[in-house]
């Protein structure tokens, strides 16, 4: 398979609140599954300030399949990239809303800090996955979480990947 034949999966692992971010290790596992099962390369997007954190995400993957694009694109470039992406994986963040609005298949791993019905990205190809926890929505922002951020740390990447894959293939069960 030549690199040119690969689809692009955009991964946006950052958010304005750290509490809303899936752990980097979960994103790494998700990328592993993409590389294993999909003819895709992964493009990690974010700001220049987030580049060093993204380095930790991409470091263990081949540069031929996983690219750290943080800080290399303006917003217009990001829009163009999203438009051509096979799917987009995000937290509850601006890129999620962008991908949803552009009609791309979007997986949003949604922290329980916010009410999903109020804040989730909306679009015809959006899948939102969240832990149904009794403490949601907490809106504790950057304060300590008494539940050790179970809503995100306990949101298994294998489950998210599999549910997203099945829904995209038309299996909603």
């Amino acid at each position, binding site marked *: 398979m030549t690199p040119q034949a690969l689809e692009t999966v955009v991964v946006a692992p950052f958010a304005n609140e750290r509490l809303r971010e899936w752990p980097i290790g979960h994103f790494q596992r998700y990328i592993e599954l993409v590389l294993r099962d999909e003819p895709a390369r992964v493009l990690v997007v974010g700001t220049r300030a987030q580049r060093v954190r993204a380095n930790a995400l991409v470091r263990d993957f081949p540069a031929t399949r996983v690219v750290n694009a943080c800080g290399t694109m303006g917003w217009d470039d990001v829009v163009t990239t999203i438009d051509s992406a096979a799917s987009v994986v995000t937290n509850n963040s601006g890129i999620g809303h962008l991908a949803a609005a552009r009609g791309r298949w979007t997986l949003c791993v949604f922290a329980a800090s916010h009410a999903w019905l109020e804040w989730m990205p909306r679009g015809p190809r959006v899948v939102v996955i969240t*832990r149904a926890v009794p403490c949601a929505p907490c809106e504790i922002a950057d304060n300590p979480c008494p539940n050790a951020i179970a809503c995100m740390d*306990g949101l298994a990447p294998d489950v998210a990947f599999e549910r997203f894959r099945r829904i995209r293939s038309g299996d909603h069960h």
Partner: protein
Amino acid sequence: MTLGLGKPSSPISLSWLDALPAGARDLMTFMVAQPAVAQALGGMPALNIRAKGAPAGTAPLLPHASLIAIDPDDPDRIRDALHAADAACQCILVHDVLQRIEDYRSFLAACFHKLAVGGQLIVVVPHQFLLERKLQVPSRVSPTHRRFYTPGSLLTEIEEALDPSEFRLRFLADNDLGYDYATRLDRMPSGCHDIVLCLERMARPVWSDQLANAERHATTSKGSMELPPVDAAAPVYRVIMPDHGAIARILVLKVDHRGDFLMATRAFRILRAAFPAASITLVCGPWNRAEAEALDIFDRVLGFEFFAEDASAGVRSVDMDEAAARLQALLGDASYDLAVDFRVYDDTRRLLRSVKARHRAGFDPHDRFPWLSVRLNVPAATQMGRPTHLLVPASEFQTREGERTAADIFFARGRRKGGDHLAWGPYISLRQGRYLVELLIELLPGARGKPFELLYDIVSDGATKLLGRGRFVVARGHHPQVALEADEDLAYLEWRIMAERSKRLPGFRFAGLAFTRQVSSLAVHQSEAMALLAHLLPIRLEAAFNTSETA
């Protein structure tokens, strides 16, 4: 000339340099002139990694190094070659290779992990603006050059490939020794044209693994006053997924009275405009049927008696199960893509739930109908803004200073002996709203009429929320008043009345508190509320979704 060859015992001698091909000799001359690099080059054991077929020749640059010549197009063999190489190297020199390798990240990581702690990795690549002199690939020098480098882009790849807490950069510079800047672009320039980078492998700091989570603020302390605990052992996932079904069949419920129906007309028109091709069935009171048909909005109008047409004729109790059964009988086996109940009050939601529909929509100001897929929370001022008056007698308060009678607490003239807290209570719940609280405190007959001040504070929810504190003036002829804003329902409300310590007070009587909830004007007109719901439907259903919960 010593060329800064590091330690006297350095294996790189002048005679070794003289024996190198011209280009390689100039590069080595530059490197050994840099103390940090020269010291690194002398480390042993050493590895010299070259690319097969590179123009600099096949001879090693270091006399004491093992030479690995790799095929840049064969990542498997690169990996195998590095795997087989000596571990714990003190020096690894990667010369004229990196720009030829597609997966630079894995290659750099593999080289780095062959270093001992304290060992040095030296990377030499051609400079974009010395050798290539071109703004982007393809290379004018070699088709095997996949990328161009500046010091910045080289360092970018290094930081991407290697954990920054595990290395320190010791040297980074352009090498233009003997370079001829006058050479035209279509000619090969003479002289050195490299970037030289040298880094040292460090022991991984103990804090390195903590960096990723250092700002996530998680705490493992269990339990919280404000957040219920999570059972981490039994995760439940909620998945919200797209519903791509069309909205072709709509059922509208509007079963209340004539005025209610007329106020819904705008909402009906909005709904029809939003779903012009849909088949819309209206279920309304039989008395509104002719009016509904005259609107020319609905494909079908069905009369259904739920309320009495004339409510003034007497209260009629409604058996909800019976009414739901009658509605089901009226609709038969019909199922709908959307069923919407336009009654603002929630007493007809039971009917809506009995309808077979993929999506159900209605008002839910009290969060009672989670099964609605479209819920609109619009305050109904008549129900929710109702003023209330609540008299809480002194018997609901506690005191140590006062003397109780059946209804009141009396405080004698003088200084307080037992402390500054006069009375506290009544530990009641209070609905959200704005209150004016009258403190039923009066000077005793015969007491001097000079006004005096008392203090108060108000807390709720087990004293976790402070709602207010301050002073009020007690004077003959009127009761002091305090405004209380409850922005949410309150539980276990405590009101404390206090005197300033050691202050002499006249005798007075405390009869309790009178709470008056102010009228709320937080509402929209019924017709506007229904129009808002009608507008919400296409917005929500344009990207409709379903939810599921699974373990």
